[in-house]
């Protein structure tokens, strides 16, 4: 079977010494930041972007991927043990997980989380291996109009599936597109919005924008929430769930994997949405509804499976179509572009080693996390006690030096200062970052495709509607916008996300 052949080749790439090493580094780093509140995978990926530029693209992606799904593992650990979800996607795990811990079943909860996550990760890896090539074949028939419509759909979907005000998210998207315009126009050769600054002739460095918006701005926001964290240390005994527990875990894990796999692919989706949806569904289908909120194991294994599956499948649109489905993926696109690898339908053909190596490394990483994390639990909890005033200057320094190394220019340090301020201000004013970074990454590509499409059709805008794939994508966009306009859907949206805060 071709699937197995490809995975075998991928394992060959993933199991080189360098790649195993960086996979391990990524997973450990990911777990660490998952454990620590106040810093998440988006900020970490942003900060490490300058370093990845000196690495091989495959190795860089393997490490960054490890950070993303590793953070899901880390977040659940603290969610269960200390009721402090280190990641937003672990919020639901904390609900029942911590109750289990209080009842003396911390080890079982941790074990359940790890086993469900690993199962989901394995299944997700196979799903990616099965579906990605098919998707790429379809995408190979994409021309400029299809790409434009797809990117439009990606942006629209990310708003619809995001929480918060629709209008504000739309503003962020438009703002991001505008920011993407800065630089030399490819078609006409003139410099736009550079205001004479030579450093801007290639556009604002995406990595610098990411570091400012997610690294610096996060810190600025966290400085205002200086709550002291009381650590309730719970004893961790047996780490393996009993047979009866395992039996109860099977269905939620499988359901969670399915939910996560589907929602992860959708733009705006990923780990966060998947875990919430899974919790809601588990609560609805369980035979013991009274247990939910008091320590139901289904409330741990379902969401944990979902968030891991969601994290992994969110790579699919990025790797097959070049469309990032969330902020972390957007930054990975940025990392790839600077390495000279243009993510898109051709990636799987032109760079099979990169693609399959990355897919295989996800499974390897999951295995590492399963084996390493359970014994290391004690260490992670101790690290929770690290005071924020040691952590945040470190992040600042790291961002500062990293920004300089992007282009050996001080200019980028000022860029992260500017975007740190912008990110902080926008958050204060009630706007969200993920749509912004998504559209910055997609912006220049969208304009190029738009202009190329119109040149192909000699100025006739109907080209977007005449081509079947393009018009389908546009219709889906409109349907999504229409859905959000409907008050009933809007209410459901708000209800789901209310539980998050």
């Amino acid at each position, binding site marked *: 079977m071709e699937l197995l052949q490809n995975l075998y080749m991928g394992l060959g790439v993933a199991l080189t010494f360098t790649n195993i090493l960086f996979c391990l580094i990524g997973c450990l780093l990911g777990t660490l930041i998952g454990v620590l509140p106040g810093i998440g995978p988006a900020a970490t990926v942003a900060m490490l972007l300058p370093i990845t530029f000196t690495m091989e693209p495959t190795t860089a992606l393997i490490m960054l991927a490890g950070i993303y799904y590793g953070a899901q593992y880390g977040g659940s650990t603290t969610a269960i043990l200390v009721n402090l979800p280190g990641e937003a996607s672990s919020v639901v795990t904390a609900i029942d997980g911590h109750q289990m811990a209080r009842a003396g079943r911390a080890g079982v909860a941790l074990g359940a989380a790890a086993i469900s996550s690993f199962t989901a990760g394995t299944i997700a890896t196979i799903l990616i291996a099965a579906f990605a090539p098919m998707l790429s074949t379809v995408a190979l028939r994409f021309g400029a109009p299809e790409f434009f419509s797809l990117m439009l759909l990606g942006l629209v979907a990310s708003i619809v599936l995001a929480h918060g005000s629709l*209008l*504000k998210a739309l503003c962020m998207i438009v703002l991001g597109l505008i920011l993407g315009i800065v630089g030399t126009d490819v*078609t006409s050769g003139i410099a*736009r919005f550079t205001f004479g600054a030579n450093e801007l002739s290639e556009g604002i460095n995406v990595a610098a924008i990411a570091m400012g918006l997610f690294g610096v701005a996060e810190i600025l926001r966290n400085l205002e929430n200086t709550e002291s964290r009381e650590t309730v240390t719970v004893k961790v005994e047996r780490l393996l769930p009993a047979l009866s527990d395992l039996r109860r875990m099977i269905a939620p894990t499988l359901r969670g994997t399915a939910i996560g796999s589907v929602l992860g692919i959708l733009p705006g989706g990923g780990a966060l949405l998947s875990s919430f949806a899974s919790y809601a569904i588990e609560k609805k289908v369980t035979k013991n509804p009274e247990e939910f909120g008091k320590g139901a194991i289904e409330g741990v294994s379902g969401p944990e499976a979902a968030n891991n599956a969601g994290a992994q499948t969110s790579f699919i649109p990025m790797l097959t179509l070049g469309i990032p489905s969330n902020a972390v993926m957007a930054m990975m696109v940025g990392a790839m572009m600077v390495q000279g690898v243009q993510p898109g339908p051709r990636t799987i053909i032109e760079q099979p080693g990169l693609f399959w190596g990355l897919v295989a490394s996800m499974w390897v990483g999951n295995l590492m996390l399963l084996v390493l994390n359970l014994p290391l639990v004690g260490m992670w909890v101790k690290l929770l006690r690290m005071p924020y005033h040691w952590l945040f*200057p470190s992040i600042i*320094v790291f961002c*500062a030096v990293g920004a300089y*190394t992007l282009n050996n220019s*001080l200019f980028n340090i000022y860029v992260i200062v500017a975007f740190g301020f912008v990110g902080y201000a926008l958050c204060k004013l009630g706007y969200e970052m993920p749509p912004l970074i998504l559209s910055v990454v997609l912006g220049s590509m969208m304009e190029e495709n738009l202009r190329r499409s119109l*040149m192909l059709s000699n100025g006739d805008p109907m080209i977007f509607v005449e081509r079947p794939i393009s018009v389908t994508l546009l219709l889906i966009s409109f349907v999504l916008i229409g859905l959000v306009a409907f008050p009933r859907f809007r209410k459901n949206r708000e209800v789901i996300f209310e539980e998050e805060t």
Partner: protein
Amino acid sequence: MEITFAKRDLIGAGLLLCVGLGTVYFGIKYDIGTPQSMGPGFFPMVLGAILAGLSVLIAISSLGSSNTETVKLPSAAPFLVLISLVAFALLLFSAGLVIAIIASVFISSLSTGEFRPFRSLLLGVILAVCSVLVFRVALGQPLPLFVSWM
């Protein structure tokens, strides 16, 4: 000090309106061309107009809103962090990486309520060593360690 959501939405919308209008202004300056053959200014103009329109909508909805939730105005802390970054940039070439890092850590530590000079100095030295190891030794990036200013 706090301001209501409604007021902050108005302020936010106003700022974005300026950005939108500014974009339209510059878009028009860079030849717009026609929809059939778009000039470099076409996309900016359209985007700027959309942003301006959206911000007006937000402004209008904020005026009618009776939402009484509030949000706090920023203190000095965030600005100190930003200043520490600027300090780093200014000092990197005039005083070298080590001094720049230590200065930056000092300034950003001021932003927390509890500033302890010795601890900041220690952290600064540790970070300087780590940065040298990671960026100069491991990654081979050219960074001036110390710059004598004599």
